[in-house]
């Protein structure tokens, strides 16, 4: 209809060129009406098509097959989630287990460092009179520092140093 209106417009041009009176006005109105109604039909058809597609897809979405499919996916997702949960729970148990083991180890370390530091204290006191005051103070400070840091290596070397000083 839109294409058909084109020759009518051309005809109007031709009639205007030929200077035919009266006819061009009527033909122009006809061509315009044709063009507009053509567009209207096009738009209505488009809307109809879109509406049909929407209705069909909504019906399909709520059809029994699709609902069953969605339910299956949902259950599959739940199963995967359960598996992941299991993995993370094991990880969690492992982590807390490791933590309590580390705590035991630390308690034990602290206990033995305390006894070592007591021995160092005793050694230091026993050689206090043989050492210059500043050296004694320095050694004592070092000892306190290493003990606070729980530095095993440093405490052992300090003990050796004290043993060689005697």
């Amino acid at each position, binding site marked *: 209809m839109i294409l058909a209106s084109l020759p009518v417009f051309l005809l109007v041009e031709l009639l205007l060129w030929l200077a035919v009176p009266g006819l061009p006005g009527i033909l122009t109105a006809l061509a315009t009406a044709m063009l507009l109604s053509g567009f209207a039909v096009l738009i209505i058809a488009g809307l109809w098509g879109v509406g049909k597609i929407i209705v069909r897809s909504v019906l399909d979405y709520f059809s029994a097959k699709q609902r069953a499919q969605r*339910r299956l996916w949902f259950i599959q997702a739940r199963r995967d989630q359960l598996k992941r949960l*299991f993995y993370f729970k094991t990880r969690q148990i492992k982590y807390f287990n490791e933590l309590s083991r580390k705590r035991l180890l630390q308690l034990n370390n602290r206990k033995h460092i305390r006894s*070592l530091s007591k021995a160092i204290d005793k050694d230091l006191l026993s050689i206090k009179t043989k050492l210059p005051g500043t050296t004694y103070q320095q050694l004592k400070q070092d000892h306190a520092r290493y003990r606070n840091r729980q530095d095993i290596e440093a405490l052992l070397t300090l003990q050796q140093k004290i043993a060689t000083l005697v």
Partner: protein
Amino acid sequence: MSILNKLIKLFHSVKDQNLKWQLANQGDQTKLKHARVLAEKALEAELKKKSVQLEHDISLLRTKHDAELSMFKTKCRQDVKDYKQYLAALDQLKSSIQSSYTHLPEAVAFTIHHHAKYLLNKMWEAEDFEQKMQHEMRLIRFMTTVHEDARLHLEGATTDNLPERTLNLIEQQ
């Protein structure tokens, strides 16, 4: 006018043909529709069956997981308990060597104990079983050496002031 008539005729003939075609293929069409409905029903039934199966699997999986988790928890608790016992045994080792070598410097006793603990941790943190066994062997060898040293000294079999064999072992490792 004749053009309009022709157009109307054409329209009618098209409609006729359409009707004829519909009539001829009606059986096939209903069959097709029926088959489609049946296929959809079958698919739906299959999906439902799968869902039910999966639900069942999930409940099985859940009980299995629960059982495994509780077992794992007990095992871990036992592990920590074992570790505690090992630490107590190492403490015992230290006090035993200290009681037999009365003049043993604290630093030496500490070093021996510390090394034993290092071996214990190595064993505990080993990833695969073989490595774990190796470390356990090393730890056991170390502990027996320490006890042996203590025993020999207590019996007066050696005159060393220090548990030399144990210290050698530490040096080697």
